[in-house]
């Protein structure tokens, strides 16, 4: 049964944020090629302004949006769930474009394409979370990935950057093709690319897993392949191997964008696909089936625990700051996975809002941390070792102080936002979803994480020798300072008064159900 679609103008009105993103991205591209001066810093501010305009539209839509309807032949749906995540991507984009100004200047890379690519990637992410059709999801995924491949190879003469780009491209393509194959199988089994239709089809056809397995094993295989595709993008073990190398090699500011926005997009789509298509009881509990006596919820659970342990343990012994943050990003993916599993089990607004609050907090924390690290990066190495940070706090006290805030937020120490995000996530997983063992393991692992997070601060504040870094390299202009202030402010603000955010997020859950 297909709901009646509104008229075309109304439909276009509903996707104004997406249209604006495309228009702005194209105009940045044109401004860049027609600009006379060599200086490209103003493009960063312009991009931030453009994104802020889009953010206002998103916020307006969020307030007015009460019924979510599928539009454009049921290929996308504009609902509060998608809008809240679009907001998160745009915030990450604003911080990236403000923070990148100094970084690009440090490397003498005066290119406007950077900002245009960031905006196109955000377009892809937003489209992806709005999609309710497998085809749109795939197109959006590629629209998101291609700019990121290009961005991670931004330093064309730097071998690490190139390696990162090529590695990410090849592995990403493999993951995309697995995902696409899974989608094809699902389409073959159900005869539709629409997530809702697929979900209804599965629900009406199959009452328990035995019937699925005997008549249509393809559904299970397709579902697993879709999962693998998303797990790759979210850097969940055992598909996390690419993360450290890619994060290390990519330009620091791009790493930040990748670890925050791309991950959030992949998780959100994961949630959307699952919530709409595979929420059939038969699929939820493989326990009835013949494969083994475990449900795949438990499989995801084990993978989440493995991700947390691998991320935190391997990070302990790293000396490269970007690798530390890369492994910590894996660990955070593990925490999020626990939250996601919790949501899969309960499907209530509490676990849902815990997950989204974590993303909100992680956006500010992660972007802020990477911007601060990018300022401390010694010139022309694209590599930040712990020793490079020695005593840096006394050269750039403001940047270091904000970095300390972000590091404490990562480690989950109050009153930073990371504390309540982690607290709420674990509380909801423990209390509401009953995931006792994973939460306890994650908490123990997060004690280990305190060690490597604090090592960064030890080098920043407590080493007396100042390293070889020339003070000139630590140049900060308004862009970075604004970005760090915004991120720092919100990390503290969400950390002290998270209530209103949780309430807003809970509102977006209702619309997800209406899907």
């Amino acid at each position, binding site marked *: 049964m297909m709901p009646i679609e509104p008229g*075309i103008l109304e439909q276009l009105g509903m996707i104004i944020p997406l249209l604006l993103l*495309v228009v702005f991205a*194209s105009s940045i*591209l*044109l401004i860049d*090629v*027609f600009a006379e001066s060599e200086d490209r810093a103003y493009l960063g501010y312009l991009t931030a302004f453009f994104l802020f305009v889009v953010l206002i539209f998103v916020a307006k839509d969020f307030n007015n949006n009460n019924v979510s309807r599928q539009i454009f032949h049921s290929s996308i749906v504009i609902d509060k769930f998608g809008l809240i995540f679009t907001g998160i991507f745009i915030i990450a984009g604003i911080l990236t474009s403000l923070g990148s100004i100094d970084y690009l200047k440090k490397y003498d890379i005066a290119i406007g394409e950077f900002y245009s690519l960031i905006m196109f990637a955000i377009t892809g992410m937003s489209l992806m979370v709005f999609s309710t059709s497998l085809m749109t999801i795939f197109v959006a995924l590629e629209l998101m990935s291609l700019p990121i491949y290009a961005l991670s190879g931004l330093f064309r003469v730097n071998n690490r950057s190139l390696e990162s780009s090529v590695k990410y491209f090849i592995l990403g393509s493999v993951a995309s093709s697995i995902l696409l194959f899974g989608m094809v199988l699902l389409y073959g089994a159900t005869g539709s690319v629409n997530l809702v239709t697929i979900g209804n089809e599965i629900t009406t056809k199959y009452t328990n897993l035995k019937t699925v397995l005997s008549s249509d094993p393809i559904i299970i295989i397709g579902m697993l392949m879709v999962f693998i595709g998303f797990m790759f993008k979210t850097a969940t073990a055992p598909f996390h191997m690419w993360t450290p190398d890619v994060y290390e090699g990519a330009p620091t500011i791009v790493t930040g964008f990748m670890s925050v926005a791309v991950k959030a997009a992949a998780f959100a789509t994961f949630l959307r696909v699952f919530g709409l298509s595979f929420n059939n009881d038969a699929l939820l509990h493989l326990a009835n089936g013949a494969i083994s006596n475990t449900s795949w919820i438990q499989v995801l659970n084990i993978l989440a625990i493995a991700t947390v342990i691998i991320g935190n343990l391997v990070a302990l012994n790293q000396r490269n700051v970007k690798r530390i943050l890369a492994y910590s990003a894996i660990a955070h993916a593990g925490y999020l996975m626990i939250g996601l599993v919790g949501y899969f089990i309960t499907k209530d607004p509490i676990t849902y809002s815990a997950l989204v609050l974590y993303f909100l907090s992680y956006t500010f924390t992660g972007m802020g941390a990477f911007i601060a690290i990018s300022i401390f990066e010694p010139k022309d190495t694209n590599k930040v070792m712990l020793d490079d940070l020695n005593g840096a706090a006394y050269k750039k006290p403001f940047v270091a102080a904000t970095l300390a805030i972000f590091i404490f937020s990562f480690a989950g120490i109050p009153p930073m936002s990371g504390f309540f995000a982690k607290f709420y996530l674990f509380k909801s997983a423990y209390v509401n979803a009953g995931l006792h063992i994973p939460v306890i393991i994650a908490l123990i692992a997060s004690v280990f994480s305190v060690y490597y997070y604090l090592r960064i601060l030890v080098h920043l504040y407590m080493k007396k020798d100042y390293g070889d870094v020339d003070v000139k390299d630590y140049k900060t202009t308004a862009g970075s300072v604004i970005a760090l202030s915004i991120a720092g402010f919100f990390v503290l603000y969400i950390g002290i008064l998270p209530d209103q955010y949780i309430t807003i997020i809970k509102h977006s859950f209702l619309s997800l159900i209406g899907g």
Partner: protein
Amino acid sequence: MSETYIPMVLMIAIAFGLGSALVLLSVVLGPKYPSDVKDYPFECGHLIDSDGARKKHSIKFYMIAIIFLLFDLEIVFMYPWATVFREIGITALFEMFFFLGILVVGYIYVWKKGVLEWE
């Protein structure tokens, strides 16, 4: 069930048979006048000289080729659009203009970046 595949099998058999038959026939029946020039490795109008396969080509070749591919592929979208244009009506026209607008932005970008200049 299996009889539905018979036409496909037939199709494959005929295609394979016809192809190999024609090649075989030309080998058997065709006249042969071998010469040095004919045996020389042939590559897109270039003669292979001492550099062998390592010879450097201008990057412009790749640029042009990629841009040609891109624009050529985008044009393919116009065919299905043309077939349903009447049904969708004026909306389709605006949609296509928007699409072409993005292409034009790309075109201007490529132009201003100097990809189209040979020298």
